[in-house]
Each structure stands twice: as C-alpha cells, then as structure tokens.
C-alpha cells in the first residue's frame, strides 16, 4: 500500500491504521487517495507547487515572529501563511489570478527565507511567491510598475536606466589568457565601486589574469526572475552561459550572492551549465589565505559588525567563511549584532521589494541598520552589494546622527589589511 510505504517512518501511524475498524480504514485510505483534489489546479499551464502552498496555507504561521513581511506591514494579509492561502485560492480559481490586490500580496515578500529557516516543513514562502509571479508573467499580469525592469534588460542588459556594462567603464578589463572571469554585479558596478576596486586590487595583488568582459556582459537575471520574468531570466541565462563558457576561464568570481546563486543553482535547475567553477570573493579570499598566497597582516584597528546576507546565511546555511577571514586580520574586533548568522535579518532590498514596496523597504533597511549599530562599530561589513546599498540608503534616511560608521564590503577590509591602494 502506498500509504504504508509513505509513512514507514511513522510506526505509530502504521500501527494506528492496522488497528482501525475496516470502515474507518477504508475512509482514511479514501481520504489519502483523494488528497490531491485540494491542490490540483485546473488553470492551463499552472506549474506552482500547490501542495506546498496548501501545507503553508494550513499552518498557523509558525515563522511569523521573524518574517519581516509581517513585522513591517503589521498586516496578517501578507504573513507567510496568508500569502500562501491567497495563492492557493488563486491557483484553485477561488480568487481570480488577475485580482490586483491578490497580485500585490504575491509581491509583499523580500525573498529573505526567514520563513524557511523556522519552517517545520522546510517550505520557503518566498520561493513559492516567485513561482506564483512567473504564473503572472505567463498571463501578462505582472504589475506595470515592474515593466521598466524588463525593458531596461532589453535596452542595456541591466536593470539600471543607464547600462553599467559599457566598454568605456573603468571596470572593463580583459587580460589575455585570463583564468578568472570577474563577474561584476550590476549593483556593484553602479553603487559599490569601492568594493569592485578592492576586488580588482586583490586580483592584481595576486597577479591573477582576469577578464570582466563588459562588452558582452548582461545581468545574471536574478532581479528579473524574482519579480516574475522567468522567461526573460532564462534568456539571460543562455547569454551569460555563452559569454562565460566562451571566455575559456577556469573560475568565475562573483561579488554578489544573488549572481552566485543564479549562476550556480538556478541556471543548473534550468539545465544551463556554466563550465568554470563559480565562487564568491569571500570563498576565493579564504582559500588564498589558507594557501598562504594572501597575507593580510597590516592591522585594521576597528570594531566591525558583520551583516550576513540572506542568501548565504539561510539559502546556503553558510555563515563562517567571512568570520574566519576576519579572525585572520590583526587588530580587527568583530562584535556581533544580536540577530546574526542564520538568524540574520533582511536588509529590505530582496526580491524586488524595493521596487514593489518602497516605503516598507526603506523602513526595513533602517530597522536592520539600527540592529547593526548596537555596538557602535566603526564599520558595518557585508558580502552583498545590495545589502550594503540598503545600509548606505538607510544611513541617509536615519535621523540618528549619533553614529558615524562606514559601510564596507569584506573585500575592502582585506584589501586594507594588505595595504593595497584601491
């Protein structure tokens, strides 16, 4: 019996089924066999995991206390559980797919995976919302305020009004026989130039031959994919694959967790294979330090607080590499925010939230900045250009002038300890 196999781990349940009266047992088995009726959609070409949506919709919001979507908005409507409930109703045609309020519920999420972290069933409402949004794309229902993102990709390969990947850019570097493809993120190029310069200085210091191929570059597709433009993101994946694989490099280095995650996981889920190894700069730096090729020995006498980006801390469960690097830098004192590691909190910019829910996104950035300021650090450090951008914006919006910390990327700290000019 299928049910026996499925529940072989739950001996108590098997014993219960075996001890039931025949009619009860038949009723239970019938309930089990017919369960899919509650999560099977009749909508054409509807591909969302409705089974997980149903599970989430029946949960009492066990992740609610840490879900920034709910904490910020104070609206049960956009709690993880209720987003799933709305989406289930949409998938089951109880709420029309084109209902604008229901659509805006699907966008009340910053893809931070706080829900998944606490979820007893390992469900990410954030991922389910991304799936729902791509159903909107199929039906031409993506809200108008997001259309410009797609248009810009078509115009200049990025989500910015003015394409950052120009051949004239200071970051357009193409060394002969390059081994490393430095895959610079859009946000890094535009808003986190000091970090990019530090990374370039590090590569030069290591005498690594690298290319950035700005002439052929495109966005990794993450911002597009997250807001629902899955088909556009898939086209970008193909373009990126060609650019990277044709470059004949051995390693792709990214400075952005979202780029890394796209190139490494999402592309491969879509069957798009990037040949070179894909690393984030922090992985590369630790490896070089451990091999003795990088020796950050100049004291950096600063107190820092590290902000774990959601993708590393929760998506990949990786929280130690940056801290190991900090431990090797003389003079540096790390003081943790109360919420750190896997219990980090979103910067407010994930999942297109800054475009879809601007005011709340700004509020989230301020909340996180405040948490990171607990020990009045000299530097707030991260490994994600978007988080760093959010904190830079939050500093501008903050009414509290008691603090004067700088926002830095880990690479900048390492470069400082190496005494590099950048």
């Amino acid at each position, binding site marked *: 019996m299928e049910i026996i196999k499925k529940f072989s*781990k739950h*001996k*108590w349940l098997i*014993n*219960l089924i075996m001890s*039931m*009266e025949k*009619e*009860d047992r038949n*009723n*239970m088995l*019938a*309930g*089990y066999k*017919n*369960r*899919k009726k*509650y*999560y099977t959609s009749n909508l054409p070409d509807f591909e969302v995991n409705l089974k997980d949506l*149903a*599970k*989430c*919709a*029946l*949960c*009492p*919001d*066990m*992740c*609610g*206390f*840490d879900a920034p979507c709910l*904490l910020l908005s*104070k*609206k*049960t*409507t956009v709690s993880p559980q*209720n987003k799933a*409930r*709305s989406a*289930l*109703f949409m998938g*089951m*045609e*109880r*709420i*029309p797919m084109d*209902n604008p*309020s*229901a659509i805006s*519920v699907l966008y009340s999420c910053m893809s931070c995976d706080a829900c998944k972290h*606490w979820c*007893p*069933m390992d469900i990410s409402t954030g991922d389910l919302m991304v799936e729902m949004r791509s159903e909107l794309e199929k039906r031409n229902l993506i809200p108008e305020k997001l259309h410009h993102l797609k248009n810009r990709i078509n115009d200049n390969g990025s989500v910015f009004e003015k394409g950052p990947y120009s051949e004239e850019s200071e970051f357009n570097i193409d060394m002969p026989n390059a081994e490393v493809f430095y895959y610079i993120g859009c946000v890094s190029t535009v808003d986190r130039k000091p970090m990019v310069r530090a990374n370039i200085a590090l590569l030069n210091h290591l005498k690594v031959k690298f290319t950035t191929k700005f002439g052929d570059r495109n966005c990794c597709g993450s911002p597009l994919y997250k807001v629902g433009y899955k088909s556009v993101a898939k086209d970008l994946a193909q373009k990126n694959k060609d650019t990277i694989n044709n470059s004949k490099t051995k390693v792709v280095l990214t400075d952005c967790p979202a780029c890394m995650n796209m190139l490494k996981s999402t592309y491969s889920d879509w069957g798009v294979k990037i040949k070179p190894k894909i690393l984030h700069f922090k992985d590369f730096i630790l490896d070089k330090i451990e091999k003795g090729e990088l020796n950050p020995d100049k004291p950096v006498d600063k107190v820092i607080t590290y902000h774990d980006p959601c993708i590393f801390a929760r998506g990949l469960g990786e929280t130690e590499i940056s801290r190991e690097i900090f431990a090797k830098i003389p003079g540096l004192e790390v003081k943790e925010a*109360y919420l750190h590691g896997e219990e980090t909190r979103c910067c407010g910019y994930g999942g297109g939230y800054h475009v879809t829910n601007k005011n709340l996104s700004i509020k989230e950035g301020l909340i996180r900045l405040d948490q990171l300021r607990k020990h009045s650090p000299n530097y707030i450090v991260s490994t994600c250009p978007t988080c760093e951008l959010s904190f830079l914006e939050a500093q501008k919006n903050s009414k509290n002038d008691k603090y004067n910390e700088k926002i830095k990327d880990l690479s900048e700290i390492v470069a400082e300890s190496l005494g590099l000019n950048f």
Partner: protein
Amino acid sequence: MENLKIHFENKTKIKNIDQITENLTKILGSERISVDMIDRIAYGKDYWLISNLMTLKGTLPCLPDIIIWPQTAKEVSKIIKLANENIIPIIPYGEGSGVVGSALAVNGGIILDTKYFDSIEINSTNMTVTVGTGLNGAVLERHLNEHGFRMGHIPQSIRTSTIGGYIANRAAGQFSGIYGKMEDIVLSMEIVLPTGEIISSKTYPRASVGPMVDRIFLGSEGTLGVVTKATCKIWPMPEKQGKLSYLFLDLQNCLDAIRETLQARVNPGVIRIYDKKETERHFGETIKESTNKIMLIFVFEGIKRLVNLEMQITSENCEKYNGIATGEKPVDHWFETRFKVSEASEFGPYDQVMDTIEISCMWDKSKEIYDAVINSLLSVPGIYLASGHASHFYSTGVCWYFTFSGIPKEGKDHLTLYNEAWDATISTVLKTGGSASHHHGMGVNRSRWMQLEHGEEFNLLQKIKATIDPNNIMNPGKLYSEEIQKRKL
C-alpha cells in the same frame, strides 16, 4: 469572489458602510483601514482547526466588513464610540492563532488589528516589562533575552501570537510551572472599554483596595474591551536548566509522583506526561524502551543549587512510584520538536477531522477524567484516534490535553463529526467535575458550554457584559448570549 463560500454568513449588513469607512479614515488616515476583499478574506479566520478543512474546500469561516490598524488607545476609543453610534461589532485581533474561533467576526463588523501596539519598556529594578498588547510573544521574549531577562511565557504558539491574545485567553506557556499562566504574569493593564473610556489599573506587588477590576478582562476574549497595554513580570535568565525523564507503566503512579512533588513545593518549569499512544507517537522512534509506557519529562530552571535540590526531590518521588529513569534524551527530543507544528498541514488534505481539547481538573479526578474522556471520544462513530497528554500541573490539579482524529462515516459531514467529538468530551468533563477549558478559551466553539461551566455565575457574567457593553458591540456571538448556548455551528 463568487467561488468562495462563507461559513458564518453575516446576515445584518452594515447599512451606511461608505460613511462609516469615511469616518474611520478621518481617525486613522487612509493607510490603516481597509475594505479590500483580500484583507477581509485574510482576517476572516483564526486557527480554529476545522477551518483548515474549510480553507481546502474554499469556504471562509467568516467575512468581516472592515479591517483597521489603530496605533493608540485614543484612536481605539474614538473608533469604539463610532461603532457604538452605529451598532457595529468590533473584534480585537492579535495574530489569529486562537484555536476556538474567538477572533472570528461571526456577525461581520470591524476587525481591530492590534499589531501596532508593540512598545516595550523594561524596568529592571521592579523586574517588569510594560508592553503593547499587539506585540508578538517571541519578539518580546527575544528582546528580553537580548537584555538578559525572560518573561518565560512560552506557549507553543509563541511565534505566532500576541500578548493581548494571551491576556484575552488566559494562555499558558510550556514553562507555566515556574512562570505561571498569563493571569499570574500580568500585573496591570490599560483597557479601552466598549463605551470608549480608557482605564488603567495600577501596578502593585499586591494590595487590598477593594475588588480587582482588571481581573475580569483576563479571559474576556475581546468581549469586554480592547486591552492596549500590559505590565508583566520578568525574571533574570536562569543560571541552570536541568532535565529529567522517567517512564511509567501505570498512569496513576505517574500522577502521584508529580502531585507529591508539587505539593512538597518543588516547582519544575516544565512537566509533561504522555499517555501510551502519545509516547509512541512522540518518542517511539527515538526512545526505544518507551514502547507501551508513559513518558514523563521535566525541565527545571533557576539558581543552580536550587535546581539541583529540586531535581533530587523530584527523582526521589519518581523512583518511589516505580518510575524508570531515562535521562536527558527525551527532554532534548522535546526541546527539538516543541515548535514543529506540521501535522495539520500534512494530514489536513486527507479529509480528516482532528483537533485538540484541553481541560482542567482537580487531582482527585485526574485519572478518572482521563479515562472517561478517552472512552467517550472513542465511542463517537468515525473517531479512530483519541489520546492525551498533560502539560500544566499545579499543587491542586492538572490540565489534560486530548487529541482526536476521525473521518465521518457514511452520510455524516465533517462538522457533525467534529461537534460530536467535542460534545462527547466536554459533557464528560463537566459531568466528572472538570473545567471546559484550561487555556484555549471558549470562542465560537466552546461558548455553548459557558452556562454549564459557570452555573449561577453565568447570570452575573451576562449582567457584567450588559453593563460594560450596553450595545453588545465587542466581539458579539461569543461567551454570553442565550443563543450561543444553543448554537449549531
């Protein structure tokens, strides 16, 4: 949304809803009020478990008319006055984790979300915290922990419920043995009455100044006003946490060991016993020797020397009653799984009827009531699982927590089976001298037993309600009315 049905359909539509909305907007601004269907659907539910089946079938438990998010007691006061003028129900709403439908707008009306009331103020000399009642319990506990304190009120729903909800239901946390139930934790409150006055009770250690007025708001389930602020006891983080577990062959022995321990004034923070079925369910895979036995676990908290002594006395009592020591592993297993709530999600789509029912009784009825409830549940045709554990204990008695599950037999619908299981349990409990609820409250589901539970007190309660809330605007359809006593769900 023609594809959604409504279970408690509101028959009395608000006539001048546009005008009401406009007036509310004047008080709240346009951002903190909604008549949008998507919000009304979201707030048309709580965690009354039968509504999970409704969700799957596309039925909304109810459909409130307006949702509002006030920020201050003054705003609440103005809103309540407006609601009185127009006789519109107001239902306070924390996080909707209540399991008996007490936050359901069964007569429509205004859902008043309390989540903006989220202030926290610690007084480390008096060891109190004054909080907004819309604050999530886990957010508060995390904040207190960060500053070296704890309130210690840890219901399983702590991650999805509010202080106001705890007060309104007299909630009980897993560590009630030390920190008490919500009524033991709250010292004073700010309340907006159903006629709009704002009252605050004084915070004192103890006093003798006439009746304690604010106590009637504990357990009032949103029917007597909106609690906007509360001052609660807090404690330092414990120096030691001690763990013990024992297996018993006989339930009475197990109960006696606990009773003697508590009556010796030893106070474990957590005491939980699981009957044989629940021991199999929760510990069968991890503690092999637990087969066909009753599991008892303890967690102690406090100063090391005191904890050691408490553990020693508890162990002696367990051994005296033939308990078999099983170490810390079962307790660790409980710690790991205590917030893993997934059964309703996993088994919900199998068309099952399931729920949990917690009741309380004095020690002298504790074994009798357990046996009687399990038998009465299993006598309901269609119910194939009935089990129990006990999770809160006092020097005077016990809280039993029963779980049932079943599928209706030919011809019957789910709600009928659900009600039969509840009827069987509560009537057995009341007949045996127990109380109908220990901490979940009465809500739409259990209010039909209010009169039987309270006896003559019930008339007085009705009078109090009529005096405080003459227009019956606060969460109508719950607790008091004659009609509820006969309610068909």
